[in-house]
């Protein structure tokens, strides 16, 4: 098998579009399940989400999957844009009158435009959240610990750590944060615990617009929520055609199964982006 067949032939390019596209659909499901934890209220939800974010960054299997995801997005986007450029060149002179609506859906004809909008969304989304998680800029997860005592209730800010059952680590000058996450006795090499990055408060502050656990609210939260929702609508259209199209590209077509694949694709294309979009709306109106 020559390399040119594997990468350059029109049909092989479609296999790659379909495989990466379907993998990204799986990624969407995983990502959504994580995000849905933002519906859990209070400190409990904050812990669940930050623990999940930690897990996503440190679990070796997830790490491998995340690299496959980055590669898939890159490959899908580059291949998709290359296909679109070739397709434009295949008809240098346009029709004066083209009644394309009579034979195909506009969504199917605009996959590259929809995809490019999704790509813009992915880039801004990664700058807003992923980059903060990976390159710093996030505070550590701290909460208020109330201890009843003889002199009345005592309130103290403590770090939320991987070993919450052990002595709570207070936010005091005697405790020093190293390597972004590790809590050390100040001026020593004694590590006492590992904390969590507070991505949760960052997300909530970003979409609610309100100050959250010491994270400044986003003045343009309403704009962010609207743009997020519109991007999910675009994703919905992309998947409305893309999901079942991927099976056709892979040659998976059968009188008995294809109607079900098409139905599942339509349901997926509506439900997944809708659930994604409800989260920032919920955070904003909450």
């Amino acid at each position, binding site marked *: 098998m020559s390399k040119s067949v594997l990468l350059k032939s029109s*049909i092989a390019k479609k296999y790659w579009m379909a495989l990466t596209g379907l993998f990204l659909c799986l990624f969407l499901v995983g990502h959504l399940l994580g995000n849905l934890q933002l519906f859990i209220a209070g400190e409990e939800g904050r812990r669940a989400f930050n623990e999940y974010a930690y897990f996503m960054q440190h679990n070796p299997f997830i790490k491998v999957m995340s690299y496959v995801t980055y590669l898939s997005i890159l490959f899908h986007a580059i291949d998709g844009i290359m*296909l679109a450029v070739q*397709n434009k060149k295949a008809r240098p002179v346009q029709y004066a009158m083209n*009644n394309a609506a009579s034979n195909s859906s506009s969504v*199917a*004809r605009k996959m590259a435009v929809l995809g490019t909008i999704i790509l813009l969304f992915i880039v801004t989304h990664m700058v807003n959240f992923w980059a903060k998680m990976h390159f710093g800029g996030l505070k550590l997860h701290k909460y208020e610990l109330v201890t009843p005592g003889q002199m009345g209730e005592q309130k103290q800010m403590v770090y939320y750590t991987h070993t919450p059952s052990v002595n709570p680590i207070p936010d005091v000058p005697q405790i020093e944060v190293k390597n972004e996450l590790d809590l050390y006795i100040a001026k020593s090499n004694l590590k006492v615990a590992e904390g969590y990055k507070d991505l949760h408060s960052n997300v909530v502050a970003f979409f609610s617009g309100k100050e959250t656990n010491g994270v400044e609210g986003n003045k343009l939260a309403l704009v962010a929520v609207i743009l997020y929702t519109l991007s999910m609508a675009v994703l919905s259209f992309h998947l409305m055609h893309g999901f079942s199209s991927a099976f056709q590209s892979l040659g998976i077509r059968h009188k008995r199964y294809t109607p079900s694949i098409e139905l599942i694709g339509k349901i997926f294309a509506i439900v997944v982006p809708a659930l994604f979009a409800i989260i920032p709306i919920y955070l904003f109106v909450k």
Partner: protein
Amino acid sequence: MGLTNAYCLMTKNLKKMASKTININLKIWRQKNANSKGSMETYKLDNVSTDSSFLEMLDQLNEQLINERQEPIAFDHDCREGICGMCSLFINGEAHGPDRAVTTCQLHMRKFKDGETIFVEPFRAKAFPVIKDLVVDRSSFDRIQQAGGFVSVNTSGRTMDANAIPIPKHDADKAFEAAACIGCGACVASCVNASAMLFVAAKVSQYALLPQGKVEARDRVLNMVRTMDEEGFGNCTNTGACAVECPKEISLENIARMNREYLKGMLSAE
């Protein structure tokens, strides 16, 4: 009512039906030759019988043009009964016009309204360059066909009787449906990407489904798809426009089959 009366009524009705005519406006692509720049020109044509075919209407227009000492419009045609695949034309934004499962030669003027403006353009694709007016060069299809659209058989005596090879009815029917493709190019013309996948898939399927075609199946699909790409057709995005506009109703099932055949060929080729 006597028999003669009934007969009179019938002929009168027939005459009335036949005598229905419409007046139309036409916007038609005119281009002197392959290298010149073309443009849409406007024509008016009166008294077009609704029983005439689209090509007969163009004949009528050409007669009018010749009488006016103008250059007649060049367009492709041959059998005029929907089997040769020579006629083409993008009519009112659709390949072979607004009707389904017919070629332009089978399209009737009764599909158009009196006073309507009808756009007539050549099939547009880089791989189908315009030769003159509405005539395009579809020899890229011939080159794809030559790259693998055949079976090699021994013709020097002692040939095998084709009927001696048992073929499941289901496969024979599917192969026959695929073989109905007349190579007109409407699929390419309709596709946003000017992709030739439906045509090539029909040709690949027609052989892939039959025992005689299996021998050369791998090289056939690889070579035909390679030639298709080299000719400058676009890539399929599964919009399905081709199957809707195809006069022979070739199904998208064939494209899925070609995608499977290609995967097999790609993985097993050396």
